[in-house]
């Protein structure tokens, strides 16, 4: 049986791990390679590394760090942040990343999704979507949550699937950093509207939140950062608890 995945996310700035509460206050939480190794040895199913300042400062992603991560860990990982060209992706995959995640650039250049899918296969293309609930609808935000668009979440999700995305990483900006639970309703609707795996992000605070989000919708994976980085939730403890609740988990 295909297991539900638990994915610690490492936001990277200047080769260090950070986590923004509601994307604003940044707190240093360690060395990415050490953290990655620790997580891979303690039950993480996958890891995501987001170069959070990449889009804003137009930085190209961090190929060297990717190579170092690949050398040290034996589980899959996704890399995102500032990816704008086929060549960016080629370097990251060549250096050992399994998947790449694109966000803002895909919104302004949707054909980029098609280009990447046809060159590298859908299986390594994750489209990350940040959205906020305003006036009864979910709107897509860009550049780490700084710029609002008029694009609606569910329309955009269906479009990225059609264009060849292999997976959607959905972050609710209303929930991110609150530690009050995930955007279960929106995730449930999202999983009904698209037929590719969905990673839920934003709002992890307690073990019961993971339980809720796996039970409520057809979600494939959950991504979280600070609860893991600051050891508020132990990965092993979390996975045992989920397994006890009949959620298929790799122990």
């Amino acid at each position: 049986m295909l297991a539900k995945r638990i994915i610690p996310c490492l936001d990277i700035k200047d080769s260090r791990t950070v986590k923004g509460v509601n994307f604003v206050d940044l707190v240093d939480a360690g060395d990415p390679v050490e953290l990655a190794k620790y997580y891979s040895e303690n039950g993480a199913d996958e890891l995501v590394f987001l170069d959070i300042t990449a889009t804003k400062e137009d930085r190209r992603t961090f190929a060297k760090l990717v190579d170092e991560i690949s050398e040290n860990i034996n589980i899959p990982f996704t890399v995102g942040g500032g990816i704008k060209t086929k060549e960016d992706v080629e370097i990251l995959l060549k250096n050992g990343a399994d998947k790449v995640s694109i966000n803002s650039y895909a919104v302004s250049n949707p054909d980029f999704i098609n280009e990447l899918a046809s060159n590298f296969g859908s299986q390594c293309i994750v489209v990350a979507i940040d959205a906020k609930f305003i006036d009864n609808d979910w709107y897509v935000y860009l550049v780490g949550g700084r710029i609002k668009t008029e694009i609606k979440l569910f329309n955009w999700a269906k479009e990225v699937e059609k264009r060849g995305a292999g997976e959607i990483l959905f972050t609710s900006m209303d929930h991110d950093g609150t530690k009050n639970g995930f955007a279960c309703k929106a995730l449930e609707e999202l999983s009904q509207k698209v037929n590719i795996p969905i990673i839920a992000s934003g709002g992890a605070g307690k073990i019961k939140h993971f339980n809720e989000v796996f039970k409520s919708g057809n979600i494939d994976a959950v991504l979280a950062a600070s609860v893991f980085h600051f050891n508020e939730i132990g990965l092993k403890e979390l996975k045992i608890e989920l397994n006890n609740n009949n959620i298929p988990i790799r122990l």
Partner: protein
Amino acid sequence: MRIAIIDYGAGNTQSVKYALKRLGCKGILTSDKEIISSSDKIIFPGVGQASSAMKKLKSVGLDLLIPSLKQPVLGICLGMQLMCDFSEEGDTDCLKIFNSKVKRFDNSLKVPQIGWNTLFNLKTSLFDSIKEKEYMYLVHSYFVPVIPKTIATSKYGISYSTAIKKNNFTGVQFHPEKSGSKGEILLKNFITN
């Protein structure tokens, strides 16, 4: 022992190289036919799309070399699929080592299948010290059906081949280089058995 990792621009070769390094082995990334032919073991990785991968193999003549190899060859993911007759992905004629088609998962499932899935019906020494129902990491939209050469199965909607073996050729649909410590055991089995 010399282990060649076939490098034809369509694989997560770096991860395979590093996985071997963690096992204390050196893998040589190469598309050089002489080096491949004279290696003790050969790993044939593959990530991406079948028809473009076959084009890349053909452009350097590896489509003829690979089926003629006599040493143990391990095809990983797309590498395993390319060892079959034909893939529905881009209606591609493949290397014809295994008498099977490669099919697409049914649309009633989420495609691609991404994540850790369990193994069943384990056969051969490739799975020494690996138990039934062990998890391995997979990412794929196409699959090899269960055939007489199947040596392990997984379930995703249907039961399909997650490993196949014929003479010196072995294929695994999962990524041992990304499947944690159990994946490393499997790679070690391939190297030492």
